[in-house]
């Protein structure tokens, strides 16, 4: 296991009674990275997280943390911590009590100092004596974060931690989470089904489908150079023309190019979504979507031409 790798999965599989949830997944998580596991619900990403945390045992394969094999260890002996999707805050304890929970073995003065520091980092010093039921959703999420990072885990596991927040807050928290990760330097393993979240926050993304890894790479790589059709489709809209993929934002509507007829226009504020049908040649009848500036006016039934750059084409 190379020193720059903090967490490694070796051919990990997990079978449940009726199905194979995870199939031969091997992964290297670089130390200090913001690493996302991205996939649709039921693709096995949460099962992977639970195997790393110790709540599930792999059917086969190994999990290594910092050069030590951890898959046979119980959760309380692994130096990884989890931010649960529902946060799982202890309702009978205050914010302070929740954050202190894992610090039992530390000296009191040291524990108090660390709790104070971490509450400051998540801006909850003023609410230390509140109960979880007295906090907003965003505050609860920050308590869940504080409770985990105060233990300085080798890897912090985050199970869709933004899904319980309302959409407005979610975008703001993305930035905060990213900043926090940079500041504390802890490796984040972030599970999400939201491609925008994964693209905007991650150093690396592993895309999963049906229990297997589809592709691992930087956000740019998986978006612009998807290796499978699933990755191409999951990370954003994609036109498929003759087996070649073109993103709608790469398609431009201009005087010359392939002939098409506009079938629908959706105004989306900062841009417009234009649906068209190609009319001539062997491509006849195929639908193509373009994303254009909202100032350009198109109407249904209008004859247009579409084109795109060769380097924007995706071949899988």
């Amino acid at each position, binding site marked *: 296991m190379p020193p720059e790798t903090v967490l490694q999965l070796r051919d990990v599989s997990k079978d449940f009674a009726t199905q194979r949830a995870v199939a031969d997944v091997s992964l290297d998580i670089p130390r200090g990275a913001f690493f996302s596991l991205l996939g649709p619900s039921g693709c096995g990403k949460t099962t992977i997280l639970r195997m790393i*945390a*110790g*709540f599930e045992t792999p059917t086969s394969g190994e999990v290594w943390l910092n050069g030590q094999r951890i898959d046979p260890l*119980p*959760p*309380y002996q692994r130096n*990884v*911590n*989890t931010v*649960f999707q*529902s946060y*799982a*805050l*202890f*309702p*009978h304890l205050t914010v302070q009590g929740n954050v202190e*929970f*894992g610090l*039992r*073995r530390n000296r009191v003065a040291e524990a108090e100092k660390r709790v104070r520091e971490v509450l400051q980092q998540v801006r909850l010093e003023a609410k230390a004596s509140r109960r979880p039921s007295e906090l907003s959703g965003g505050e609860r999420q920050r308590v869940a974060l504080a*409770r*985990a990072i105060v*233990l300085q885990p080798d890897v912090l596991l985050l199970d869709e931690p933004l899904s319980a927040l309302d959409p407005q807050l979610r975008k703001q928290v993305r930035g905060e989470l990213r900043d926090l990760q940079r500041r504390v330097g802890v490796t984040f393993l972030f599970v999400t089904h939201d491609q925008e979240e994964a693209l905007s926050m991650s150093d690396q993304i592993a895309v999963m489908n049906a229990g297997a890894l589809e592709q691992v790479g930087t956000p740019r790589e998986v978006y612009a150079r998807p290796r499978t059709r699933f990755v191409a489709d999951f990370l954003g809209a994609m036109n498929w023309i003759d087996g070649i993929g073109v993103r709608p934002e790469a398609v431009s509507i201009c005087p010359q190019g392939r002939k098409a007829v506009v079938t629908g226009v959706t105004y989306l504020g900062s841009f417009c979504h234009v649906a068209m049908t190609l009319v001539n040649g062997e491509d006849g009848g195929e639908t193509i979507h373009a994303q254009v500036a909202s100032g350009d006016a198109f109407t249904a039934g209008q004859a247009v031409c579409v084109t795109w750059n060769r380097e924007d084409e995706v071949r899988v």
Partner: protein
Amino acid sequence: MRLRNAFLAPTAILMAVTMLAPLAIIVVYSLLTRGAYGGVELPWTLENFTRLWDPVYGVIFVRSFWIAAVSTALCLILGFPLAMFIARSGPRKNLYLSLVILPFWTSFLIRTYAWMFLLRDTGIVNSALQGLGIIREPLALLYNDGVVILGLVYGFLPFMVLPLYATLERLDPSLLEAAADLGARPRDTLVRVTLPLCAPGIRAGAILVFVPCLGTYLTSDLLGGSKTVLIGNLVQNQFTASRDWPFGAALSLALMAIAMILLFAARRRGEELL
């Protein structure tokens, strides 16, 4: 609103007639003089209450509280693991719950007699032990405090298990995972998460077991005999052999008062009883 009142009325009337009326009669009787052949006579008196301070009765009160407390504690110790087991046994839950309730299908009296047949000198336990040559003389299994506690724990265990099960079943399993995730061993998780979150169920179960144990007379009469007189037996005696109804009424009022004070003390601030 009127519909609600219409449906509430029968219950309200039933409660008034079956609870308040007898209670009023007990209060009135406790202030009267005993009749020569049972019943009550004038004049009004407080003597029945001053007699309560006789140490003879104090000993019986203390013993009753002690036996009820030990029985409640044993029910909790035995009931908690059972409740947790049932709460975690998935689709089998309902089967196990019906097994817990199964004894209620037979009269408590008959079940207590069954214990007598098991434990008396010529009972199954003693016969078996003698037959195996382990003992020569039968063991005195009946007629002591221990066997009364056994009978009470046996009888009231379901009243502890059911409320404990109800709270444990609602306990969010991700809280237990979170505790383990934060480094707590199973024992720490039990003490620091499970038990505190089950406090309402523990309180409810303790009250449901303690109160009937405190007033029991059947179990102590049949299994404890004349050696283990509890408040319940004392009250019963006043209305039968002793023919002292006013004192019996005063005794039961004293028992009720003490039980209510204890319940009030067990209630946490801002929390409803049960």
